[in-house]
């Protein structure tokens, strides 16, 4: 059923080929601006907190690729557009259909234009995997898809929580952007550059540090300047999966208490 909903959605998007292409190029330029700037700047500065361009590319590539994937799969939950659905009452239509609600929201949007972000992220990630001097082991090869999946779950959880909150606020709350887009920006750089308070927030409250930074330390065999227990990199799937489950529980709780706006 999910495949049919998404299939219909994708066919719809492919009807606007020019729009699709322009979106690809536009997103591409945005991403290129961020990483291109970094690459050009590092010609002068050489490194950030001892991390070379290729090493930062690992952080950046992982988080960009995963966020792009998440944004495509979870775009039905995008707090901005989901808020509109609640306001306009299109969400109420879903309540009337004889089909699981979560499935319908998942199937309501599958943003193909995120492909640009995924390509761009994957290109940077590919560069990092080749140029960062990783000493490859079988375990590391297997670990990369696990990290990506954990990141997708992590950001997906944030989207779902953001969408659920709109049941109460009705207005789409843009503050969620601080954690999603802000999280992407923050996790693109090594954590030791940030003030301890910011770091603690992203360790204990929104534990993003475990899904990108620690896996990267492990892949690069870098010592941990923050002195976490040695098993910290292995927490990635636990944190990602755990957050997604918690978010879905919150979502179900939200649905039970949802009252329509009446529009």
């Amino acid at each position: 059923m999910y495949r049919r909903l998404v299939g219909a959605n994708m066919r719809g998007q492919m009807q606007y080929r020019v729009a699709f292409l322009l979106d690809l190029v536009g997103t591409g330029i945005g991403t290129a601006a961020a990483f291109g700037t970094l690459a050009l700047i590092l010609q002068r500065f050489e490194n950030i907190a001892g991390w070379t361009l290729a090493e930062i590319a690992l952080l950046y590539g992982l988080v960009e690729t995963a966020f792009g994937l998440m944004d495509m799969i979870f775009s039905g939950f995008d707090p901005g557009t989901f808020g509109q659905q609640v306001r306009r009452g299109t969400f109420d239509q879903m309540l009337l259909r004889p089909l699981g609600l979560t499935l319908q929201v998942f199937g309501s949007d599958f943003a193909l234009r995120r492909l640009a972000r995924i390509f761009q992220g994957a290109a940077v990630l590919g560069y990092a995997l080749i140029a960062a001097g990783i000493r490859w082991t079988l375990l590391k090869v297997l670990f990369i898809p696990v990290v990506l999946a954990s990141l997708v779950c992590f950001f997906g959880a944030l989207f779902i929580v953001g969408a659920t909150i709109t049941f109460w606020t009705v207005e789409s709350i843009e503050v969620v952007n601080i954690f999603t887009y802000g999280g992407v920006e923050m996790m693109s750089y090594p954590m030791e550059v940030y003030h301890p308070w910011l770091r603690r927030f992203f360790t204990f409250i929104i534990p993003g540090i475990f899904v990108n930074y620690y896996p990267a330390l492990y892949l690069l065999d870098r010592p941990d300047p923050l002195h976490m227990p040695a098993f910290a990199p292995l927490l990635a799937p636990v944190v990602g999966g755990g957050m997604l489950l918690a978010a879905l529980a919150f979502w179900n709780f939200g649905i039970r208490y949802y009252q329509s706006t009446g529009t």
Partner: protein
Amino acid sequence: MNPLKYSANRLQNQDLKLFWHLIQLGFQQQFSYRAANLAGLMTNFFFGLLRASVMIALYAARTDVAGMSLQDAVTFTAFSQAIIAYLSLFNWWRVMLAVYSGEIASELLKPTNYFTFWLAQDIGRAIAHFLTRGLTIMAAYALFFKITVPQTVGQWLALAVTLVLSLLVSFGWRFLINLTAFWTPDARGIGRIAFGLSWFLSGFMMPLRFFPDWFVRLCHLTPFPAMVNTLLEVYLGLLEGRALLGALAQQVLWVIALFALCQLVMRAGVRKLVIQGG
């Protein structure tokens, strides 16, 4: 008094009055989006904190890079976050939306140039954003970091001039992008590319003087440095004497070029609209 001259005067007065009313309108509109503005403010500030952290890590033990101290560089991140809303750097789709919804038909009937109609409203919007999203971010930053502030009267004057010019360049560019809506249903996609380019080439992400020379030369072929980089360098007091005058003159030229282009393209667009019957 010559009656002809009298009526010309009166017309001018009325135009000015209308212009002033439109500025007020644009200003007031911003205060109906209080929640959105607050969220935007927090987001701008949070991203600013991240950017400042990266800047501090980049400098490491360096005391001076391309004439900028670490304090200047941190101030750069503050100031560039503070002008996002003022220059509407991330998006502005007002004219595009008016074209797509058909509202433009009634707006064109108004007894004022369509370009001026939006320019006035944008000035009002910018003043509101300058106060609510610009000054506040600078003040919030000052709580966390030591930031650079212009020292001399001359610097403040130059800043005032360049603030206005930057807004005009940015408006000309945004208006021009919106006009593509007359010809294509995909103006938003084109706009996204245009805005993306402007972050990259304007010196918004990093001061242009940090980049390699070939890249800076490339940027200066576009109007983008006249939107952001000049403004930042004037604020930080990095330009003096002839360099300062040259930068301001460049801004003036871009304003003239973009405004003229806007009028030309707008006329062509409106003609197309009229032929099609709206």
